[in-house]
């Protein structure tokens, strides 16, 4: 297995997806704004889609199923982004901030 034939190997894609997932988790934990967390969630969804497509290409008997599943993940992600961003805008209008530390009603 040489470096140049990595694209024909299932594990390459799995490692890549794991790294992207890790980046998404890191961003989700450390980001202080709602939009930053949304961006990290998109990274996690992309990692999940890469896993689906990799198994679809290398092991699944019917290679249409994974592609259809990835298309549905895309549709759900688009809906999630639209709803999430309008919630962010509504929060911003009420609190004048989208920092997660500022979004508290109670003192404490």
């Amino acid at each position, binding site marked *: 297995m040489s470096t140049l034939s990595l694209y024909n190997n299932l594990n390459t894609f799995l490692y890549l997806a794991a790294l992207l997932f890790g980046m998404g988790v890191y961003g989700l934990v450390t980001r202080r704004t709602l939009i930053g967390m949304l961006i990290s969630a998109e990274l996690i969804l992309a990692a999940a889609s890469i896993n689906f497509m990799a198994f679809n290409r290398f092991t699944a008997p019917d290679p*249409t199923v994974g592609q*259809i599943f990835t298309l549905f993940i895309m549709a759900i992600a688009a809906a999630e982004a639209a709803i999430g961003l309008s919630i962010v805008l509504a929060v911003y209008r009420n609190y004048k901030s989208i920092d997660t530390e500022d979004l508290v009603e109670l003192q404490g």
Partner: protein
Amino acid sequence: MNPSMPITEAPGLFTADGLTGLIFLVMMAVTLIGGLIACCAERLVRAVAGLMVCFVGVASLYYFLNSPFVAMMQMLIYVGAVCITIAFAIMLAAPEESKKNGPAGPLSGPLGFITAGIVTFGLIVMALNTKFPILAKVNQGTAKEIGIQLLTQYSMVFELISIVLLIAIIGALVLARAGRSK
């Protein structure tokens, strides 16, 4: 690309397979660098730009996985729609990260890194130690076959997802309009 022929011997750099492998390495680097920018950039506008770069890389990975149709949808939906929507929200909400460290404290960075590292390490070890059975393909997974499957076996899911998208659009409009003053 031949869908089901694993390359056993090392290809030379200036053969078709070797150049394909080189392009794959470049796009893999693009994906990872884009992801790094998206999760670590200080300013959110740069994070969105990194997300865009990352999604272009992911689209090319889909192309390498024999799915040009999904690659095109990735470019259209993620790069063209989702990233632009996030960019609009950043411009509307103007979230400058003024304070560096809140009550989460300076510990949140290292702790987040450790969490992500453990998760990534676990996933990689699991992928390394699992033997995945390879089954014979029943079709080639072309765009035509995707269309046939979408309108026969998965037609119910197809309709439901369009309803979900419709509700999402209406919900987004209602939420974004609600507190609007004049």
